[in-house]
């Protein structure tokens, strides 16, 4: 005898609340202030976009062998074009650049193998972290298997920039983790050593550290004991980024609920067991976005090695500006540099945001 409940049908919303017109009204013209803002924004766009397109695309010159070819009044991309290889590989002998490409391909393949289910991820990671760098080092510097030796002074361009960034981040990882653990430990000496190291590194600009690394480290070593400048700069970069990494990882450690530590303790795991099996895996997963951000920062900061006289990407572009054949192409060089850095950094930051989103949903925590 009860009345049966039949939900009434859902109707489409009234037309004034959907559609293009509604969208424009709602998003651009919703109040007098917004109308003014919209007009102002449109004006800014009008001022910037058309001249940029004209300069960069319409009037640009794409090919040529010297600045004589650039007559369009727009950008002289021919300069970038003719120097492209140098910008990518620096002074690396051009008949040897296949070695760099090969190393890159191998790396991409290795990373792609993570997608294959059957492969043990741990071993793969070990291969990438331990075996790959050795392989890459020999590929780059040569001197074995009949590869022509290429001294590090010739490494340069984007290759060097990426190399510095990647090694900086990868090597600073374990160091940063140790420092973070040390900073959270309740042993006063260990704690203060870590705090002092982290804080003093973070307090000074990278440029002073690079300067120290490039000219002063030998003063602190016994006479005769000295090593490659690239290596020294790398050490500086690694120390620098490890301090930042430590703070990122510390953030992750702090985000792990106390219950996880307690559960691990209650099961009888030792300190190192609970850190390596329980805490760090979770903490690191949490801080991947932070790590990517550190990496982006570092990647941008590597431009500073140009100040200590290394021909990284920016340094190489500047050097190319000296070429009498290509005078007056400074702006194109800088725009190209800015573009490449932007692609890298923006890509990575998008990637980290995607990761963040993925981890958020895929990984419910109690």
């Amino acid at each position: 005898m009860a009345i049966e409940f039949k939900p009434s049908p859902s109707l489409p919303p009234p037309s004034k609340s959907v559609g293009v017109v509604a969208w424009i009204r709602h998003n651009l013209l919703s109040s007098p202030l917004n109308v003014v803002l919209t007009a102002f924004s449109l004006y800014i766009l009008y001022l910037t976009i058309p001249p940029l397109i004209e300069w960069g695309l319409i009037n640009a010159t794409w090919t040529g062998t010297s600045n004589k070819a650039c007559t369009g009044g727009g950008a002289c991309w021919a300069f970038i074009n003719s120097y492209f290889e140098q910008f990518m590989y620096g002074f690396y002998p051009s008949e040897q650049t296949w070695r760099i490409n090969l190393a890159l391909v191998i790396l991409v393949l290795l990373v792609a193998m993570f997608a294959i289910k059957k492969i043990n991820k741990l071993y793969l990671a070990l291969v990438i972290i331990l075996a790959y760098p050795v392989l890459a080092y020999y590929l780059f510097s040569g001197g074995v298997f009949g590869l022509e030796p290429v001294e590090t002074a010739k490494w340069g361009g984007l290759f060097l920039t990426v190399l510095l960034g990647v090694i900086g981040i990868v090597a600073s990882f374990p160091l940063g983790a140790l420092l973070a653990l040390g900073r959270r430990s309740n042993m006063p000496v260990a704690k203060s050593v870590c705090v002092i190291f982290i804080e003093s590194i973070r307090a000074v600009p990278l440029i002073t550290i690079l300067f120290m690394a490039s000219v002063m480290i030998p003063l602190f070593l016994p006479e005769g004991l000295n090593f490659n400048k690239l290596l020294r700069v790398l050490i500086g970069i690694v120390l620098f980024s490890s301090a930042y990494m430590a703070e990122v990882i510390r953030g992750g450690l702090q985000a792990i609920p106390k219950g996880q530590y307690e559960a691990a303790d209650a099961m009888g795991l030792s300190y190192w067991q609970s850190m390596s099996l329980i805490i760090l895996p979770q903490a690191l997963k949490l801080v991947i976005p932070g790590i990517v951000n550190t990496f982006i920062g570092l990647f941008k900061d590597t431009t500073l090695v140009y100040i200590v006289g290394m021909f990284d990407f920016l340094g190489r572009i500047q050097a190319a500006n000296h070429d009498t054949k290509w005078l007056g192409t400074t702006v194109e060089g800088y725009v190209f540099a800015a573009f490449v850095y932007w692609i890298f950094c923006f890509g990575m930051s998008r990637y980290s945001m995607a990761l963040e989103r993925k981890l958020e949903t895929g990984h419910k925590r109690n």
Partner: protein
Amino acid sequence: MSDIKKPNKRSFLYDAGTRSLVFQVVLLAIVLYVCYYLFSNLQANLDSRGISTGFSFLNEPAGFPILIHLISYTEADTYGRAFLVALINTCVISLLGIIFATIIGVIMGLSRLSRNWLVARLATTYIETLRNIPLLLQMFFWYFAVLAALPTPRHSYEFADFFLNKRGIYSPNPIIQEGFSIAVFGFMLSIVASIALIIWAKKRQTRTGLWFPAYWSSLGIIVVITLLAFAVAGFPLTFDLPHQTRFNIKGGMVLPPEFVAVLLALSTYTGAFIAEIVRAGILSVNWGQTEAARSLGLKDSLTQRLIVLPQALRVIIPPLTSQFLNLAKNSSLGAAIAYPELVSVVMGTTLNQTGQAIETIGLCMLVYGTLSLSISLFMNWYNKKMSLIER
């Protein structure tokens, strides 16, 4: 009775306290040894190479000029004074950079949250572009691109007594005349008056509930009284006006392009980061807070001012301070475009003239260290003060 075993003898190896003690002693020993090792090498190297050490060079005449100096400085002054000049330059650019970056950051952060789609997009574009390009490049851009766009001194843009050209922005330089103290007195008076007004307004509100627009009116009071005092004193300021000469504009005050470029680069770059911080801070305040405030009948402007902003600030301040710190450190890149800051003057010219690498680099690190330390001390203090009181 129970058969509780008496506490078994503490095994030395397994005692938690002993273990950590041993570990720490070993660690300390290693750290001390490494320090000792490095410094003994340094000593030996310095000795064997006949490099003199010490800070006595600070008292010697520097002999080099510095483009921008806020305290008087000539080539005849000492390295010590040059160091001071550079330090002031670093502090000035950092301070101004912080102010401008904050303003830009707040505007851009709010714009990104704007309900106006176009404004939000533009702000996003600004943020994403500037954040992802190295600062050094941006400095070059501002310096060279802007320089290229400006006219030569002979063809300066001119408005009133202001000039704009490749050499910078020239403005009249105020020179204090007799009677200026009267004007200053008037200004002080107006400040006292407006403070009194604000206190009165607050008291009245407590008593009667009526509001008085104290802040706007005190602004008015300050402007009016100060102007009056100026008039009474007979406008005790003259201006040294810039004028055209053979090479340059002479006289007046000048803002060199190096300064402008560094300031622009630092504040737009850091501003992009601050914008994100501001946005995150505002988003971090639960929407429920806004709803609660609205359902109490608070207007949107009041809701922002009384509820959202105070809570957002807690989230914003800590990362904001570390951006300030970054900005101060990044000012060292000014060396690349002729801004005479610490790294450029001390680690550049001074080091090169004197060869005192250890001392000059040490000085720089010390300065930056102190700067960072004081900023982070402030941050900790603020955090403690602002942290929400909880059970």
